[in-house]
């Protein structure tokens, strides 16, 4: 379980990190918390020749409210999210989700930037980001661009990050006051990736759904936004028929892999159940 040899770099600015990535090319990888990359390196499934450790880069950590957005630096850890008053007040669904990621030791190291940029369909935050309408700040040799989370994921471990680019921050629009939210994650044991998970955010008036978005984790090669399912519950009171309809519409877009977490049919079925549970729990929190 010894990783292959590599050269270690610890730049102190984003521009230095980008320059290293550009100069060293395909054999260089940025290193954030390392809790996805280092296990892969130990198994020699990843053998980068250069690691560019971002821990010394100033300004990549922190959570701030900027107008109607919450901006989270890429090196902010899951533990930082759990400790943040800003997150607890404005984005409690991120807190709920962070608590379901891995275990305490890993939450101290694992970062939001690594979680969303890695492109692992098992990671929990990408579906949240799609559901919340978040965008990613990508900095590269040609400058800065912002990419919607919904446009970022193209396949398993395949994103729209260009060579030389680093994801430096996540920007999440502040949800409406009084919104309901839930992240329902079925896992085999604490710390596991999702067998199936669903994220819901919604608003209601007079017991009817006014707005709704639904994200799905580990039910396809990429995180999914279940748009038809979300549209279908608008105007309903989330009665049993509406819940079942939403689950069925969400299941239509699921393409999970058959693996140790279960066969395809099972994962789609429990995926639908996660959608129903998340809708119900989100509705109960409206207020």
């Amino acid at each position, binding site marked *: 379980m010894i990783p292959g*040899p*590599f050269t270690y770099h610890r730049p102190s600015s984003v521009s230095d990190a980008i320059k290293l990535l550009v100069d060293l090319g395909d054999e260089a990888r940025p290193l954030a918390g390392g809790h996805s990359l280092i*296990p892969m390196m130990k198994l020699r499934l990843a053998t980068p020749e250069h690691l560019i450790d971002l821990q010394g880069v100033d300004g990549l950590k922190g959570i701030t409210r900027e107008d109607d957005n919450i901006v989270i630096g890429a090196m902010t850890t899951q533990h930082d999210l759990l400790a943040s008053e800003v997150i607890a007040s404005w984005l409690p669904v991120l807190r709920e989700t962070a608590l379901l990621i891995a275990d305490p030791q890993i939450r101290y190291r694992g970062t939001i930037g690594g979680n969303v940029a890695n492109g692992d369909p098992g990671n929990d935050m990408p579906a949240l980001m799609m559901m919340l309408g978040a965008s990613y700040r990508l900095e590269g040799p040609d400058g800065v661009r912002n990419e919607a989370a919904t446009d970022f994921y193209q396949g398993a471990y395949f994103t729209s990050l260009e060579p030389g680019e680093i994801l430096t921050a996540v920007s999440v629009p502040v949800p409406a006051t009084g919104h309901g939210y839930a992240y329902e994650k079925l896992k085999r044991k604490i710390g596991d990736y999702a067998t199936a998970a669903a994220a819901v955010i919604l608003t209601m008036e007079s017991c009817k759904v006014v707005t709704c978005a639904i994200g799905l984790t580990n039910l396809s090669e990429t995180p999914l936004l279940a748009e038809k399912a979300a549209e279908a519950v608008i105007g309903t009171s989330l009665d049993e028929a509406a819940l079942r309809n939403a689950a069925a519409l969400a299941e239509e877009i699921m393409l999970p892999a058959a693996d140790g977490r279960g066969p395809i049919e099972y994962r789609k079925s429990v995926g639908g159940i996660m959608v129903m549970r998340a809708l119900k729990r989100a509705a109960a929190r409206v207020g």
Partner: protein
Amino acid sequence: MATQAKKTQVSMTVNGEPVEGFVEPRTLLVHFIRENLSLTGTHIGCETTHCGACTIDLNGLSVKSCTIFAVQADDSEITTVEGMANADGTLSALQEGFRQMHGLQCGFCTPGMIMRGHRLLQENPNPTEEEIRFGIAGNLCRCTGYQNIVRAIQYAAAKINGVDFQEAAE
């Protein structure tokens, strides 16, 4: 492939003592601690970031030292299980709890459990049983006997808070 990477110097404070060494960048922190520093209290269990036997305290956070390179920990402050006893050599409240409550069992996971329990009690000096179980979720005991480990941490919490340890009724 890269040619053999050059060794680099790292220095850190381990259990209050400044230490340094030459390591390849790929050297894992747990190997540096066990092999360069000969501090073999920190155990290697699964090597896959699951079991928590290699848990240490790094800059005030408990981390799995099998999943950090020694170079990442350059300039950091580390506590291992060897640094857990009181200054006069007597057992800390947590170590005493593991002894009194038979929290060791086979003993393999104990260093990681103690390091995680230590940080948990720093952050939450009066945890509920549920908070303890959630807080040690990253540490596996293959004796499957978490009950005594939970009691050990409860014992330590009571002692730190200056109250008598009272077991919950069955």
